[in-house]
């Protein structure tokens, strides 16, 4: 299968390790991964903050960059949801673009559901001997409906001790520009999430979105908790050699 990697602007810029992990993982499973250099950003930050006019060219850019791929895979459920739910909205009024977007969006997947749903894999051959808890990000849970796909993937990782996260489905308080527009409420939500992570006694918290992980991980680091925030892809790409 010819897979186009949509790495997302955030992961591209700040967390290249996650992008490399997706490549390692999919190649290990026998697939060819391409990274179309024409990609940039899905436009979610602009769209969700009210800047629709600025987001519109990004929809056009996304459709052009990924035209022709059988599957587009991204290590962000949130960006995948943006593409699937709101690119068609932004493409309204341009029939040619709307047609391209309609053809492309059903082929855009977040990593976890691509692995379990499209490829039908749960054991990806990973080894990660650590105690891990999983935070279901809001957009993976409520927009991409990933269900227990990430948990099934994690349970199949050798050596991994998966522990429950209390109140797992409560938002961590990131929310894109919400984190800086409403910093007090955002920090209050994050402190409760951090308390739940500590309660789980995990040494690593993982999720399917680097944006939420940047927020949770930033607080874990500030409080010197010694708990690591890691993208799901990086755990799934880990092997005996790592």
């Amino acid at each position, binding site marked *: 299968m010819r897979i186009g990697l949509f790495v997302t602007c955030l992961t591209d*810029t700040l967390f290249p390790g996650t992008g490399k992990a997706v490549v390692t993982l999919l190649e290990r499973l026998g697939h060819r991964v*391409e990274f*179309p250099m024409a990609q940039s950003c899905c436009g979610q930050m602009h769209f*969700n903050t009210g800047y629709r006019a600025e987001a519109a*060219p990004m929809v056009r850019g996304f459709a052009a960059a990924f035209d022709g791929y059988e599957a587009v895979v991204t290590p962000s459920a949130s960006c995948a949801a943006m593409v699937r739910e709101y690119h068609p909205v932004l493409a309204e009024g341009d029939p040619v673009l709307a047609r391209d977007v309609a053809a492309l969006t059903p082929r855009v997947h977040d990593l976890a559901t691509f692995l379990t749903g499209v490829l039908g894999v749960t054991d990806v051959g990973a080894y990660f001997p650590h105690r891990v808890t999983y935070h279901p990000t809001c957009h993976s849970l*409520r927009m991409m409906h990933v269900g227990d796909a990430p948990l099934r993937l994690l349970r199949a990782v050798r050596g991994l001790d998966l522990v429950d996260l209390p109140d797992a*489905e*409560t938002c961590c308080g990131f929310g894109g520009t*919400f984190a800086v527009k409403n910093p007090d409420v955002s920090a209050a939500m994050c402190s409760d999430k951090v308390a739940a992570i500590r309660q789980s006694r995990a040494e690593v918290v993982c999720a399917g979105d680097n944006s939420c992980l940047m927020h949770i991980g930033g607080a874990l680091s*500030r409080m010197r908790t010694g708990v690591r925030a890691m993208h799901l892809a990086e755990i799934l790409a880990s092997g005996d050699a790592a």
Partner: protein
Amino acid sequence: MPTYLGMPAFPDAAKHAVADSQLRRNLTHATTAIRTKRAKAVAELDDWEQLRQAAKAIKDHTLANLATYLVRLEENVTRAGGHVHWARDAAEANAIVADLVRQAGADKAVKVKSMATQETGLNEALEAQGTTVVETDLAELIVQLGDDRPSHILVPAIHRNRAEIGELFRRTMADAPPGLTDDPPQLAAAARTHLRHEFLTATVGISGANFAVADTGSLVVVESEGNGRMCLTLPDTLISVVGIEKLLPSWRDLEVFLALLPRSSTAERMNPYTTIWSGVAPGDGPQDFHLVLLDNGRTDTLADRTGRQALRCIRCSACLNVCPVYERAGGHAYGSPYPGPIGAILSPQLRGVDSPIDASLPFASSLCGACYDVCPVAINIPEVLVEQRARVVESHKHYPERIVFGAAGYVLRSPRRLAAAQRVASLGRLVAGRSGSIRRLPPPLSAWTDTRDAPAPPPESFRAWWARTRGADR
């Protein structure tokens, strides 16, 4: 009661609430309990989703044919002996009610808990003409005695615990029994004695309504305490102020909502008191009935293709109880009788986005979507929030952040400019030091680093790594 004029923007108002440990405890305790019970009550019905879709369809149909059903309601209320008044806005509604109270020769009115009259500020308008207004819902009474504001649609005094209520009753309730403690049955008994006198001496009752049935001209009030029924049956004159979106075409439609509302709001299979009346029944109940139909921004909201779904709301509060932002910021920060997620989409539509509070409300959400999941009429609150954000941005041409977002958009829509920006950002790792994270950034990003470290940019972006190791595919 204090008014909402001059409310600060949501983030400023929330800052105080977040730091109030008693408030945080009260809210977390109450919302956690009620959302757990709600989930259980909803899980009992295996056709919940069908009910929800039916309710959505009924409301959408009614809203699309509002003019027809409103006229039908007016005809049937009038035929049953009631009087119908039309109010374009809050001021008109308040003036109509004030006139009616004066005509009835009353110096006092007892009130059923009502969101519409909170919205219009009716109590203040009546008090200005010398009418004493008595809130008879227990929680509304607590709010009124404390010269406070409601902070929740269903549980207006959710921000108060029993110790605070005991203190308030001892201080403000003239007929409170001596030695009153904060034991809930004792508090309820004190309120009961206090209110009994008001019920028996009032000649005018004022209410809202949960539903208005067009086919029969019937009004419906659902409640838990029975105090509402006292107000709806004992006085000679009854005045009901009802938003035009409360309409249902027929009795069969009402059935769907009487299944959805109690489970969503109080987590009950059925609410204890449902009062339904159609006009006037000679010799039984109020002999003079007035229905005031309130627009107050609803027609404008109806004109918005995305935003109009907010008019489906049945004021159940399920969205408040699951909202992580509401749980931490409390209801007062929303600067409106409608707090929480529904308030964040309703207030800016009913009032416009000119004031600091209204312009900030659409942003008072992390867009987690928990509200949409629990909404019994399937209002896609995140979708409306994002749409209202665009409206705020469009109507505030002077926002300094426009420059930032314009520049960010210029970079992010071009892979070449993004790559160049990444090379510059990569220098940021030099300030991070050995820890690999950045502890302090200048404003506005200091809002991030005040409470969280920021990741140090890597020496090489993913795209640079790919180009170096794999070459460009296309």
